[in-house]
């Protein structure tokens, strides 16, 4: 669980390369100094110190969360959303991160582009949204191994040792209580685990791919024109504002194609976005 996503490594490498000289102080000391600056109301200094810790390659949801807070207090809602989103990937169940992200989004100009999911859907997909990539991968791997183990048991379902094992372990099996025989019981269990493995694998793969491809980004410029093509000569279709979450679909030199809720799509200057 201590492993960190690939994007954080890439981010850290980029930041480290650009600020290689600022590594004299221990990250923990810089972190503490940034917290002190924040508490004193010097948000610009706090941003500076937090950023240095991030540049040192530290990957921490606490660091990203605090950096989001500092940007929020400093008026940079776009970068606040960006760092809260990064924190959320590392700590999806942290109520502080979720609360501050919700609050920041409510202040954005493009509020209508923030999709409010129905509560039932949110609850139904909590297992996907509230887990980190590593957790999803581990859960998918473990259940895949369990599925194979059940497959082995199914293969040996006619052996005596399996009959003895089933008699001992299946006392609480719902299938047995419903009158299924051991093969049917095992088959139902395998089918259920298969569906769960499929869902978890899809979740894990989508998260890993999203990290690798940097499939999401946040608008960090105040106002961004979205063009119909990767050129300033193309027509402006609409405008988005800082903090808006976009899906990145394609890229050309200097331009990225973004998708927004409501089938909105277009090209923006790549410097106006930061990948999550």
């Amino acid at each position, binding site marked *: 669980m201590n492993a960190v996503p690939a994007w954080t490594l890439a981010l850290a490498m980029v930041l480290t390369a650009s600020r290689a000289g600022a590594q004299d102080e221990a990250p923990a000391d810089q*972190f503490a100094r940034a917290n002190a600056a924040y508490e004193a109301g010097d948000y610009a200094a706090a941003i500076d110190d937090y950023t240095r810790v991030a540049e040192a390659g530290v990957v921490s949801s606490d660091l990203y969360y605090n950096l989001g807070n500092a940007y929020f207090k400093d008026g940079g809602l776009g970068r606040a959303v960006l760092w809260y989103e990064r924190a959320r990937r590392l700590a999806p169940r942290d109520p502080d991160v979720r609360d501050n992200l919700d609050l920041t989004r409510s202040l954005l100009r493009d509020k209508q582009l923030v999709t409010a999911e129905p509560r039932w859907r949110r609850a139904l997909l909590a297992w996907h949204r509230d887990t980190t*990539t590593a957790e999803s991968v581990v859960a998918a791997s473990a259940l895949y191994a369990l599925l194979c*183990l059940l497959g082995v048991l199914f293969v040996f379902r006619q052996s005596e040792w399996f009959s003895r094992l089933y008699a001992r372990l299946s006392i609480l099996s719902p299938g047995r209580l419903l009158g299924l025989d051991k093969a049917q019981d095992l088959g139902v269990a395998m089918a259920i685990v298969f569906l769960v493995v499929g869902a978890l694998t899809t979740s894990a793969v989508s998260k890993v791919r999203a990290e690798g491809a940097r499939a999401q980004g946040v608008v960090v410029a105040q106002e961004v024109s979205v063009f119909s093509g990767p050129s300033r000569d193309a027509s402006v279709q609409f405008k988005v504002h800082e903090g808006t979450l976009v899906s990145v679909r394609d890229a050309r030199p200097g331009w990225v194609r973004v998708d927004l809720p409501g089938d909105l799509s277009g090209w923006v200057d790549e410097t106006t976005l930061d990948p999550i």
Partner: protein
Amino acid sequence: MGLVRRFLGRALTAGIIVVASLPARADDVAVKASVEPTVVEVGGQAVLTVIVEGKFRRAGAPELPPLDGFDVFESGTSQNFSFVNGQVQSSLTFHYVLSPRKEGAFRIEPIRYTVGDKVYTANPVTLDVVAGGAGIAPGPGPGAQDPGQGGIAPSSEESIFVAASVDRDTVFVNQQVTWSLGYYTDGRVELLRSPNYSPPEAEGFWVEDLPPQSKYYRTLHGRQYLVSEIKRGYFPTAPGTYKVGEARVDIVLDNVNRRGVFDDFFSRGRGGFGEPRTLRTDPVEVVVLPLPSAGKPTGFSGAVASDLVVSIVADKQVVQVGEPINVSVEVSGVGNMRTIAPPKLADLAQFKTYESGSSNDSFKKDYVVSGRRKFDFVVVPQVEGSFKMPAVRVPYFDPELKLYQVAQSAEIPVDVQPGTPEDGRKVIYAGGGDDFEVINRDIRFIHAVPASLPVASRPFYAHPVFFALQALPMLLLGASVVVERRRRRLRSDVGFARASRARREAERKLAEAERAFRDGNASDGFGRVHAAVFGYFADKMNAPVAGLTTDAVEAHLRETHASEEVTASLKAVIDACDAARYAAGAADVERGREGAARAREALIALERGSR
């Protein structure tokens, strides 16, 4: 199993019901019908309005029920799409002009509207028709123009034609151009069904339908025409020369039964084939002038309107530091008010200002579009004192006066009293849209320095070893399949089972023979070697040992293409065993050991050869 089937069946049924109910809820389409006025004279006009609202993207026109006793004319459609919580909300409004031909109380049955595979119905509406005049003005109605301007000059031979015109052919950007379609008929032709009107294409304009349709009599070339007139408002969005395209009216002439009365032009749903004809208007050209650059006030953002009025209202004027004030700025005037950009409240160090929503209303009195825009703000005082919220300025261009003007609101005095120390640091945020709500709530506080600050490293799931490990459970499963298949065959196939254990059995017997030779019991040893060799071949051939002969063994060796060396070696061993068993003195311990060893080597060679 019966119980399980019932359980699964019920679960499946419940699942289908839940899943089937989701799209219905997601569509959420509402169809409403209304008629205005609800009491109308014979020959007069009432406007039937059908509003369809919901989450859908593409749909057609409503399906009207039979409207006997009315002439029905489509008079335009307006639509609006909006995003609410990331979903598309559509609102389509259809206008129909109903002109009753007889008096009475009429009930318009529910109008049907189809979205996808679903049909939605509107509420029924009632309309009272009373006796009265013809309801048709003797001359052009309000805003009606001479159709000769920019339209078709009617020929005396034409009994039915259409003509289009505009109220002005040169306007400024965003100034209204009123386009009119006149549908002329002199009563000498009869239609089989209602005319079908298709509005013109107009690129470069923002369009507003202008109901209701007007009707009047007009004399042209010495002939009296009944004119039905439809109007639309066009607002050019950029300077240049633009065209309002041709409008089309499709009609079906009753070329058999010509009765020649005005009233039957709009008779609907009467069947028959008739003669279809398409009436077209000429395109109308409009020159759009750019707004003058001279005299443009600072802060001008493209608003074009007349008689603009700006007002400002605050919900409270005595507050504490940090206490939010809801401020509404309302801008109203004649013109397309959508061009009014959100005004800016003057930046004051003493206040923090947040936009919290806006709304728009438009009106179409006498075919002139006017409107009202309301902008909401939350203003949070940061320090105590008495201040004045400066007046809100909205610069605009008045196309009638051809001058730039500035509409300005009054100032609002605000008395800010001291609050608690925390109030000044509170962040106030606004919810979206009309459900605006102010909640005093700050972000949650920063986290302390964590015990460890891990540095970025390659995630475990990106490591090749992790991928390699994923193959292990599948390999285990594959191996179990192989093992189980072999186990089952051993149980069910005697020949396979004997052949599989042949070598093991032979090895066991040869070991016993060696023990016998070691104990000096040569005769017993040779007997066991013989039993080992013949037992091996009996197992391989799935035959009884008792009936197996040397010739049968040789024949098997030939069939299995055993090498001559192995065959000779085994034959020598068998001969030695036979000699020891049947010839006195031939049972020598050393020869026996040698025979056992040769037998083992030969059987090993045979096993290798059979693989």
